[in-house]
């Protein structure tokens, strides 16, 4: 009975996810380049050769470190902004709160490509509003300053965009979480003479912890997979690839360098890493008593 309802979904997932994953692993075991794609050269089975090549490549480790660092900054920023705004939303009146939600949802709904373009134009060296304002308030060196040229300013700019489009989710979720805390609990603590900070730290924070964990891990997963923003804003990974993250690296190897085998092996490695994070996530969900 249940199977009839599930059959289409299972069919789609098996055909459109299961089979490509099988193909991905298969490709990663071969020397698979442009010639093999067009059928001009025989397939050459490498076994784990691509993985060996990848793990002994210094660039891979640099990119991995950049991915982790970049994701960490984005996650921290997203959580900080999201949490602060969730608290803010509980403290203001209905009208400013609605305004807050509308602004946040606007940022959240902006397509990643458009959002990336928007931020690029905002920080553009020649006509960007930011440089205009900065040089207007006396920082004349900022006129014509290129934010995308330097490795760190470029990463910082992308991070600001990523935080911009991901804080609304954290904010909305935590706001709902704070609202779900029974008012009596807080009132009882206040009657007992607890200060606002004390209430926040000893009453609200512990009650929100499971939810905070959920949004943290979701943000980690999401920021680890960033592709569009880096690809669009740093023009495919920055000058000489110094703004690459794993996903963009895998894409560049497969599509720009036509190293499909190597690209696939990066894909497998990324998948395994994300799988590990997801397993932790599922454990957390289970422990916090979420009914799946």
């Amino acid at each position, binding site marked *: *009975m*249940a*199977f009839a*309802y599930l059959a289409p*979904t299972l069919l*789609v997932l098996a055909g*459109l*996810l299961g089979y490509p*994953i099988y*193909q991905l692993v298969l490709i990663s075991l071969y020397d698979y380049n442009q010639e093999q*794609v067009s059928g001009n050269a025989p397939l050459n089975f490498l076994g784990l050769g691509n993985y060996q090549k990848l793990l002994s490549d210094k660039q891979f480790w640099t990119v991995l470190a950049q991915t982790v660092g970049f994701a960490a900054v984005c996650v921290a920023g997203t959580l900080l902004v999201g949490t602060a705004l969730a608290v803010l939303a*509980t*403290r*203001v009146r209905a009208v*400013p709160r609605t*305004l807050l939600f*509308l602004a*946040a*949802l*606007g*940022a959240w*709904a902006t*397509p*990643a*490509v*458009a*959002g990336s373009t*928007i*931020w690029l*134009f*905002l920080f553009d060296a020649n*006509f*960007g*509003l930011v440089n205009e304002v900065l040089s207007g308030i006396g920082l004349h060196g900022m006129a014509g300053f290129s934010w995308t040229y330097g490795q760190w300013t470029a990463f910082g700019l992308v991070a600001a965009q990523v935080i*911009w489009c991901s804080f609304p989710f954290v904010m909305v*979720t935590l706001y*709902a*979480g704070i609202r*779900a*805390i029974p*008012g009596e609990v*807080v009132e009882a603590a*206040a009657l007992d003479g607890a200060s606002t900070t004390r209430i926040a730290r000893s009453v*609200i924070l512990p009650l929100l912890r499971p939810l905070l964990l959920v949004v943290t891990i979701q943000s980690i*997963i999401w920021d*680890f*997979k960033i*592709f569009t923003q880096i*690809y*669009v804003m740093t023009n495919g990974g920055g000058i000489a690839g110094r703004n690459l993250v794993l*996903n963009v690296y*895998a894409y560049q190897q497969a*599509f720009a360098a036509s190293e499909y085998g190597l690209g696939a092996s990066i*894909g497998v490695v*990324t*998948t395994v890493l994300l*799988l590990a994070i997801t397993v932790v*996530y599922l454990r957390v969900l289970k422990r916090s008593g979420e*009914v*799946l």
Partner: protein
Amino acid sequence: MAGLGGTETLGRKSRWAILDLVVVVYALVPVLWIMSLSFKTTKTLTDGNFIPREWTLDNYKAIFQTSEFVRALGNSIGIAIISTVIAVVLGTMAAYAVARLDFPGKKALVGVSLLVAMFPQVSLVSPLFEIERSVGLFNTWPGLILPYITFALPLSIYTLSAFFREIPWELEKAAKMDGATPAQAFRKVIAPLAAPGVFTTAILVFILCWNDFLFAISLTSTSASRTVPAALSFFTGASQFEDPTGSISAAAVVITVPIIVFVLLFQRRIVAGLTSGAVKG
């Protein structure tokens, strides 16, 4: 609700108000800036003024005159709608089973759908590229619709089963006891209760498909199936020698503003949908 603290001084209030303002500026200014750019004339494009000194619709006229953009817009709308309909129909069936029926492997199914949601899409691009080329789906509508369904299904199942769990299903039985046929019970009792959840899910899924960039640039090669996000990255302006900033801004506004308006209209539903997975109401 849990409001913190009772007595607010005027000073604290104004501090909150300023913070509120800063946030609204952070969230809104980027979008307003690109709107401003899109209305500027070529001459004033680089003047750095927040409010255009000379207003023009030329940028919009220019993009709507290029078949490249118009085709891409049509592709975006068609592909996103078809993907949404299929993903929501399949998701509704699966979520119904998850919410109402007991079957072996139920936990595993939800776990799997979460795993799919976490899956790095980039990993699927190379194999999908290969497969689609060999079966002739590369650079076609179905070539994009199929992966969109795959990645929209988990979201759709997860959100819908959260909504379906809240439906008082006893009403169905009550209606049948009052003499309604199963079809009537479904149509008159269950469908109206389920509709808001299905609608909310459809919005979320539509946004997911509409915003995709990765599949759109890798699984298309011409304007036959290229969607706006992909077309935007190939945008070089109305003519070869023109600075494309104005047209890119206009194109970005065209794909962003309708979505934002849509989201704002259905704000409460979307908030409910976003939090349904994480918070239990």
